[in-house]
């Protein structure tokens, strides 16, 4: 690997004490006057929690906003699928929570690979998000007295999670969507559904627009603006099987990367511990069961290898409750990365259950005995019903079988404190950026970050940029748009003309296997090198042998997928390179060579206390790795212990 460290990136963290940085920053940024805001056009790509909240809020401020999504309506973005809840440091339960504690838990949970100033701001804004959502009519769970209810969530020792049954993501998204539709009604936001962004247009080093494919007519369309915000989510679908929606993809951020936006920590992926195990061929996705199940479910495997007896016939003393055994303090509630790795370890050793041996039991019998079946039904009824419908088994009677699955990507486009990428005027929000979760994200924190970025951060920071970049009446007849459009058109034509033997889906599946086997839950030097060469070979074959039916002149789902898989075939390689370069274990990134004697992740703070930031150097050239050093002034790095 010829990756060499060049520049050190400046995150533009405001001066002053941690608790005052955001307030100081707000007080010092430049402002755009209310009368001038309508003269600026802001492009927002994506309508999930980050995109919809940003577009709505920027519209409220008076900017002219163009908002794009690949679905038929903004309300379907994948944020809708988040189940468990959203964290906030309200301390309504009087259990000792505070902004500082939420900040500290998030930094520690991220295994000391996140930026302190960003995380502190996130914890501060968490409270405003709850206020805003309630004012919008989001029907959070409540107590009989009418106040909001809370629950505890994996990896936290306070009850700070707000929830709306098992549909918190849906309800928060519908809140943001309603705010967005209000701005559409007011004429300040124009919606462009069924559009896929295929390139970002750069003029004089600044992001000035995008190229989209209209997914209904097939036409390529150009849009110009004064700034571009990407809120297009994560890239877990690079694994083919993941808990993400089947259309979730990396194309927008990947094409921005290839235009010069650097990529932060691409190898940091989260494998969620409580998902339904793989069932067989033809499967298109893995279903997540909320982590809240671990509050009452006990995880176990048989003590005997290859024990094929049905679970109810395995006596208590022949069961290994391995999380409770290894982590007595946190037990079944250890953070996600630890729970996932432990499940993989017991299955690798031959203790796994179910037809494939790649599953562990999540058992509610003890909780049902202790609390009664009604309480369990009230808490998890919808999840139990979902499990029953999918597997045909009744979890009230038989333990669930679960296994980890790719779920979230902490990596993403590198952004500074203002959420700006390394391309001036190009911003990345929510899961699309790398910023707040370090090497592992805590439960109920994704919703919080998406909404903090969209409702509260970008409306402040984008003004600071726009104030010094006055509108210049740029139109899409500028040659840069024509050139970007030609590039996109060439790729579309090329994909359709190959007419090979294997389908796009077959390539995607093969890539997913490589990623899962070598760039998944545990990684080593040899495997990563193999992954890099296998992905290169697969990519070469793809461009010679893929079969994309239909034409570019109408709705063509195979063509949409073909472009996305082409990008995954490049991104997968970068993830493997980053994992190889990061010769330490931290959070969800577990390098087998770097572990403590009892098998826990071994960080190497002396060498890797930084963000790895990758710069694209053109097709066929190795990317270059830069660094953003991480400085911990408040939360001093220590080895995470959940024992």
């Amino acid at each position: 690997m010829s990756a060499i460290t060049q520049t050190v990136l400046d995150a533009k963290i405001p001066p002053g004490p941690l608790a005052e940085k955001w307030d100081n920053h707000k007080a010092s940024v430049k402002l755009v006057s209310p009368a001038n805001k309508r003269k600026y056009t802001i492009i927002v790509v994506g309508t999930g929690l980050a995109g919809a909240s940003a577009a709505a809020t920027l519209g409220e401020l008076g900017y002219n906003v163009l908002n794009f999504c690949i679905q038929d309506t903004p309300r379907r973005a994948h944020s809708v699928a988040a189940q468990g809840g959203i964290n906030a440091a309200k301390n309504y339960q009087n259990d000792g929570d505070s902004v500082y504690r939420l900040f500290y838990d998030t930094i520690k949970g991220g295994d000391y690979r996140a930026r302190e100033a960003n995380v502190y701001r996130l914890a501060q804004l968490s409270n405003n998000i709850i206020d805003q959502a309630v004012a919008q009519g989001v029907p959070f769970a409540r107590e009989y007295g009418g106040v909001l209810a809370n629950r505890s969530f994996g990896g936290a020792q306070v009850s700070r999670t707000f929830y709306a049954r098992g549909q918190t993501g849906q309800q928060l998204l519908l809140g943001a969507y309603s705010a967005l539709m209000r701005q559409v009604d007011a004429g300040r936001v124009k919606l462009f559904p069924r559009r896929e962004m295929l390139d970002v247009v750069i003029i004089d080093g600044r992001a000035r627009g995008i190229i989209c494919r209209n997914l209904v007519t097939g036409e390529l369309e150009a849009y110009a603006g004064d700034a571009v915000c990407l809120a297009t989510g994560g890239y877990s679908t690079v694994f083919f099987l993941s808990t993400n929606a089947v259309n979730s993809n990396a194309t927008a951020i990947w094409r921005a990367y290839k235009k010069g936006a650097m990529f932060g920590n691409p190898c940091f992926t989260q494998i969620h511990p409580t998902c339904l195990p793989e069932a067989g061929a033809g499967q298109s996705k893995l279903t997540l069961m909320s982590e809240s199940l671990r509050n009452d479910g006990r995880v176990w495997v048989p003590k005997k290898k290859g024990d094929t007896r049905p679970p109810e016939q395995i006596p208590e003393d022949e069961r290994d409750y391995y999380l409770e055994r290894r982590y007595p303090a946190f037990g079944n509630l250890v953070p996600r990365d630890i729970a996932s790795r432990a499940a993989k370890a017991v299955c690798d050793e031959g203790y796994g259950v179910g037809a494939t041996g790649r599953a562990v039991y999540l058992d509610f019998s003890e909780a049902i005995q202790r609390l009664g079946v009604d309480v369990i039904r009230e808490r998890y009824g919808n999840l139990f019903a979902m499990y029953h419908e999918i597997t045909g088994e009744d979890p009230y009677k038989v333990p669930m079988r679960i296994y980890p699955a790719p779920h979230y990507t902490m990596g993403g486009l590198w952004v500074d404190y203002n959420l700006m990428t390394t391309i001036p005027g190009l911003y990345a929000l929510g899961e699309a950026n790398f910023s707040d979760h370090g090497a592992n994200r805590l439960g109920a924190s994704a919703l919080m970050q998406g909404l903090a970025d969209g409702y509260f951060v970008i409306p402040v920071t984008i003004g600071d940029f726009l104030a010094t970049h006055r509108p210049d009446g740029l139109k899409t007849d500028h040659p840069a748009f024509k050139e970007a459009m030609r590039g996109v058109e060439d790729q579309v034509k090329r994909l359709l003309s190959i007419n090979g033997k294997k389908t796009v889906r077959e390539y995607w599946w093969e890539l997913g296997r490589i990623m899962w086997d070598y760039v998944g839950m545990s990684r080593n030097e040899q495997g990563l090198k193999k992954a890099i060469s296998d992905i290169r070979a697969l990519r070469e074959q793809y461009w010679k042998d893929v079969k994309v039916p239909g034409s570019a002149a109408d709705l063509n789902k195979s063509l949409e997928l073909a472009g996305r898989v082409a990008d995954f075939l490049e991104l997968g390689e970068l993830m493997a390179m980053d994992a190889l370069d990061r010769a330490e274990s931290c959070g969800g990134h577990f390098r087998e060579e770097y572990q403590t004697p009892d098998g826990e992740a071994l960080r190497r703070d002396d060498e890797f206390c930084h963000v790895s930031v990758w710069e694209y150097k053109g097709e066929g050239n190795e990317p270059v790795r830069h660094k953003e050093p991480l400085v911990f002034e408040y939360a001093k790095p220590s080895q995470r212990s959940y024992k």
Partner: protein
Amino acid sequence: MKYHLRIWRQAGPDKPGRFEDYTVDNIAPDMSFLEMLDVLNEQLTKEGKEPVAFDSDCREGICGMCGLVIDGMAHGPRRLTTTCELRMRHFPDGATITVEPFRADAFPIIKDLCVDRSALDRIIQAGGYISVNTGSAPDANAIPVPKPIAEEAMDAAACIGCGACVAACPNASAALFTGAKISQLALLPQGHPERERRVNRMVAQMDLEGFGSCSNHGECEAACPKGISIMNIARMRREFIRAGVRGA
């Protein structure tokens, strides 16, 4: 397992449509209905034919993107189940299954099984929100909401906007969809300042989009994958009359 499929194919909005017959084999009982269609599409691609266009995204019953009429029923024969959650074990081996798009004047066909449901967005745009700018909210616990009211609002808010209610209704009415949103916001104190304007505008938009009137068949509730009750239609009517009486 093996299935014979009769699927609606239509090249574009103004093109004529027709049923075409296909056969798929080696389908596992735990496969979802859409995974079965994935198998068909892979097969068609390999044969050099154009795959069947259908919409889907989350494949776990929450995004509302998928929706097919299966053997005459919106989202198929299982109650409280979206098309993506429907498993093949509910269809006998060797069965012939008819697959159509959601049909309604207000949902024009785009291609094959994909329809344009943007009319539902325009109904929300007409008032399915509470007007509160970011940053102006009071502390969340400053607005107490009794638990039973919050639960009822949540029942209505669970709508995923799939449009099955419209597809199932003999009049292609969007009353359940519209009523659910009006209900949610009328139940909550936060929604009260705008309740008259909201119901008037949303109902007017629903009519403008070409949805039919509700004549109490109740098919919408039976087809709804989230079990949204037709009580919400009753509440919408009450809100509408209330707004009229108050002269809003």
